[in-house]
């Protein structure tokens, strides 16, 4: 179809040329005929004559040829286009406004689509990516879910199942030392088949060999392209050299492909270790103790066989974990449910809904742009009804008029589309910052061919939508009537009424968008003002992870952090300092079930006991983070017997009816009924985890000395601007441990702000869309009302002549203009509540019917519309009836 059109277009454009080509072709034919005749024994001259005779009329052939070549419709199209361009250029103001409106719609859409495409639609950079899954195991009754175990990987790769291959991944991080600044890098232990499994070979060197999965033989690494370029200047000789990881030499065997996309731990499962990006891969060589342990700390990736269904694979997995559950905890009678998650979902799943919301917002904006344009065109065509009437009278068919108007709007669409694509081009990069994964998925230029095609399609579709109605109107123009009335106001009541209903639609859409944005904004304000239970202002956190021989014992590690915090406390500008294993904003790395001291049978009570997040803290931590003490005391340096500080919510779950003070001194056990008793010395306020949106998670703190962690966050509360202390903190660390890299040093405010960055972004984007929508809506109201005033001047003059005061006239115009606004606003608000109810998960501490947001939106809308109606109303009131009637 397209091809045909293209050919016709080409034929048309090369009109002259094609005629020449036919001449040459026929000439050739004639010559060949002549040659053939000569071959049959004729003389040259005779051969030519006979050939000409048998050839028949050359001109007739050409005529027949031309009939086909000439595409009449196309000629008309060309005419329309020229005419349309002339008309558009005659009114540059209108054209610019229309193209700009459209550009906003198309631009917003294309930019958002480029992200949608990259994260939800673009093929993942693995061969047959649709067959790769990860597995999640859960106990639905308890709302728990886990990743896999290393043993599962070992058994699954041997078993004959619906999966052709299985790979495993454990995330973590290492201290990279030697040549240059010590640095903390995110990394992963992966099964030796990892790179083959994904189907993405290393760019240099090799992946891992099977024998490298035994402990001791695993001191080999593959490093990421990014790290290779950044730290090693893309030195190809790095392969084969050794680098120092956690104080041990590792042989670099390969450089990963630059396009390699690997899931970070938390993407595979929320309980896996968090590594924001992975720069080093090491073979997963399970030690004996790992093989004996029961740790659900391994992300499993499975590749489905070509002829197998995912459901079959899932059933096999479920049967496997059923057996495992029966064996591991026969009395517990829990069934482990398994879920296969397509790999695409682990990249897009988290913000799929949010992205779709933003996408929907941009669609609504586009729709509003369409309606605005339709209204503009309608007014324009009403003004040109005389022209259409004359054309009809001269014999233009209805279809002809229709196509002519449509051509004009298509030209507008193309112009708007181009500007819109340019807008998209400049904003898509900003959108890429939406999510690091999206950035990686976008990879360089976000505007790939499918995205550009999308923009074109949108622009064209839009032109059809906003052009169709005015075109239809124009084509129905009644020639006789229009000519009789003169070209003043053929539009009459019907067009006006139609325009007003379009305004209603526009306002309804705009209100829905504005109200959604209002709800998101209110959610966001609530979220950022939310009391997290710890100090956010003037607090700095340093992420440290000890490794190597000098820190191999608990004593050494505890002493290091004690010494460091003491040194920092002595710095000027430091108010308090402490250390904690997991920052409150960053989630928690371990959970334990908490038992009463009276519990004796694990199996019978485990399901009823609460779980708590585990943290290790130095005595100074609570003061540094301003975690409030509710009862008892914090840790001291002198705690010898096992002690714990618990959060208020844990106390409430363990002893719902007892006052907090009575909890002090009671004993509990962590993890199992056989564990030693731990005495509670204090109760502190709860802290909100992660992005604060999750439910309160009970916390249990132990002194660092009693629960060792090599990784600690040193939390420093400062009297002034926290950033000012960065350099001296760095040098304190350096003094104590020259080779210890500082993972990150951020203010708590930054950490918290980063955890809500996505929300802020989508809120701002929706808000921007809503503001544009509001502007378009107001301009729409203004345009239609003033147009209607201009059309009804005689009407108004008559009313005035009959005794209406200017005030009456103004009121009449206002009422006239505001009625569609009211209708639209009510419909829009209802729509917004409906939308928000279905997107409840995106709201935070705000109901879909949040009165503040909705009332604010209604007020803004009302004020804006009043303003839009006021100007035409004033003009109408200022008319002089005598002048008007005389004319």
């Amino acid at each position, binding site marked *: 179809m397209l091809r045909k059109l293209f050919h016709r277009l080409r034929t048309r454009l090369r009109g002259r040329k094609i005629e020449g080509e036919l001449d040459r072709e026929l000439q050739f034919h004639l010559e060949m005929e002549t040659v053939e005749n000569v071959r049959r024994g004729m003389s040259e001259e005779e051969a030519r004559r006979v050939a000409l005779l048998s050839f028949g009329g050359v001109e007739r*052939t050409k005529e027949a040829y031309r009939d086909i070549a000439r595409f009449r419709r196309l000629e008309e199209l060309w005419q329309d286009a020229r005419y349309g361009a002339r008309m558009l250029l005659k009114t540059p103001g209108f054209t610019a406004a229309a193209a700009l409106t459209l550009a906003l719609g198309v631009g917003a859409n294309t930019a958002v689509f480029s992200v949608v495409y990259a994260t939800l639609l673009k093929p993942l950079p693995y061969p047959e990516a649709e067959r790769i899954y990860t597995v999640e195991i859960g106990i639905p009754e308890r709302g728990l879910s886990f990743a896999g175990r290393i043993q599962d990987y070992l058994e699954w790769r041997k078993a004959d199942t619906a999966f052709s291959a299985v790979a495993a991944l454990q995330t973590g991080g290492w201290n990279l030392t030697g040549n240059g600044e010590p640095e903390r890098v995110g990394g992963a232990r992966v099964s030796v088949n990892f790179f083959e499994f994904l189907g993405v070979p290393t760019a240099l060197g090799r992946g891992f060999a099977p024998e490298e999965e035994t402990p001791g033989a695993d001191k080999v690494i593959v490093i990421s392209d990014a790290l290779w370029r950044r730290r090693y200047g893309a030195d190809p000789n790095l392969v084969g050299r050794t680098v120092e990881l956690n104080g041990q030499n590792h042989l670099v065997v390969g450089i990963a492909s630059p396009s390699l996309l690997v899931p970070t731990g938390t993407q595979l499962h929320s309980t896996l270790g968090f590594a924001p990006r992975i720069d080093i891969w090491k073979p997963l060589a399970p030690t004996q103790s790992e093989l004996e342990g029961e740790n659900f700390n391994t992300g499993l990736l499975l590749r489905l066989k070509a002829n197998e269904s995912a459901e079959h694979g899932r059933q096999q997995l479920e049967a496997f974990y059923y057996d495992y559950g029966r064996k591991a905890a026969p009395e517990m009678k829990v069934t482990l449910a398994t879920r296969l998650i397509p790999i695409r979902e682990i990249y897009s799943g988290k913000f799929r809904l949010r992205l779709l919301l933003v996408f929907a917002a941009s669609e609504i904006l586009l729709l509003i742009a369409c309606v605005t344009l339709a209204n503009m065109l309608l007014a324009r065509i009403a003004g040109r009804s005389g022209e259409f009437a004359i054309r009809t009278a001269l014999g233009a068919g209805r279809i002809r008029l229709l196509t002519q108007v449509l051509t004009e709007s298509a030209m507008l669409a193309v112009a708007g589309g181009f500007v819109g694509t340019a807008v998209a081009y400049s904003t898509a990069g900003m959108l890429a910052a939406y999510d690091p994964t999206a950035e990686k998925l976008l990879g360089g230029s976000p505007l790939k061919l499918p995205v550009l095609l999308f923009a074109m399609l949108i622009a064209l579709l839009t032109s059809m939508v906003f052009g169709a109605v005015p075109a239809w109107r124009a084509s129905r123009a009644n020639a006789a009537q229009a000519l009789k009335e003169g070209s003043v106001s053929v539009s009459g009541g019907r067009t006006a009424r139609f325009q007003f209903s379009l305004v209603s639609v526009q306002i309804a859409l705009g209100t829905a968008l504005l109200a959604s944005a209002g709800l998101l904004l209110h959610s966001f304000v609530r979220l950022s003002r939310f009391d997290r239970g710890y100090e956010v202002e003037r607090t700095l956190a340093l992420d440290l992870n000890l490794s190597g021989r000098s820190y191999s014992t608990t004593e050494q590690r505890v002493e290091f952090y004690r010494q460091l915090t003491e040194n920092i406390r002595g710095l000027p500008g430091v108010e308090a300092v402490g250390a904690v294993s997991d920052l409150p904003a960053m989630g928690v790395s371990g959970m334990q079930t908490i038992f009463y001291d009276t519990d004796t049978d694990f199996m019978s009570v485990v399901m009823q006991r609460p779980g708590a997040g585990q943290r290790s803290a130095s005595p100074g931590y609570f003061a540094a983070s301003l975690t409030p003490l509710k009862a008892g005391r914090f840790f001291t340096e002198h705690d010898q017997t096992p002690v714990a500080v618990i959060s208020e919510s844990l106390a409430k779950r363990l002893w719902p009816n007892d006052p907090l003070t009575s909890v002090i001194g009671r004993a509990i056990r962590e993890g199992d009924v056989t564990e030693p008793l731990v005495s509670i010395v204090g109760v502190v306020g709860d802290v909100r985890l992660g992005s604060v949106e999750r439910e309160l998670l009970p916390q249990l703190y132990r002194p660092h000395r009693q629960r060792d962690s090599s990784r600690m966050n040193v939390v420093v509360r400062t009297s002034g601007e926290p950033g000012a202390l960065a350099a001296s903190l760095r040098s304190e660390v350096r003094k104590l441990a020259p080779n210890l890299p500082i993972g990150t040093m951020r203010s708590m405010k930054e950490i918290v702000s980063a955890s809500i960055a996505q929300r802020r972004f989508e809120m701002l984007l929706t808000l921007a869309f809503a503001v544009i929508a509001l502007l378009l809506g107001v301009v729409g109201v203004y345009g239609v009302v003033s147009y209607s005033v201009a059309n009804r001047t005689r009407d108004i003059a008559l009313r005035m002549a009959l005794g209406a005061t200017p005030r009456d006239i103004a009121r009449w115009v206002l009422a006239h203009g505001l009625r569609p606004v009211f209708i639209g606003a009510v419909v829009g608000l209802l729509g917004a509540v409906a939308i928000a109810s279905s997107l409840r998960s995106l709201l935070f501490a705000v109901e879909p019917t949040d009165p503040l947001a909705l009332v604010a939106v209604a007020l803004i809308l009302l004020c804006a519309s009043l303003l839009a109606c006021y100007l035409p109303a004033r003009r109408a009131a200022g008319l002089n009836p005598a002048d008007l009637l005389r004319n």
Partner: protein
Amino acid sequence: MTKPKSDLLQGTLDLLILKTLALEPMHGWGITQRIQQISSGALVVNQGSLYPALLRLEQRGWIDSEWGVSENNRQAKYYKLTRSGRKQLAEETENWRRLSTAIEQILQAS
């Protein structure tokens, strides 16, 4: 425009051209010669219907054209079958077979 001498049925010329081009890319004159040869002279294609037909086929996307050099070293426009042309040929061949069988049956019955 009169029908060609052999009074080819509507659409039959298209089929013949497609079939001829299915063997190898060919210029207009070659097509007429080939049809004439294969049909042992029973079918003669008039250039007056050939070239419009070629253009029509090209517009439908069933054949493609390209200037090339002929066997006697002259500039000639060569036509070749496209993928959709090949599909069309299969379809039309099938149609033709059905039609001719039907006609054959009718003729035999009487």
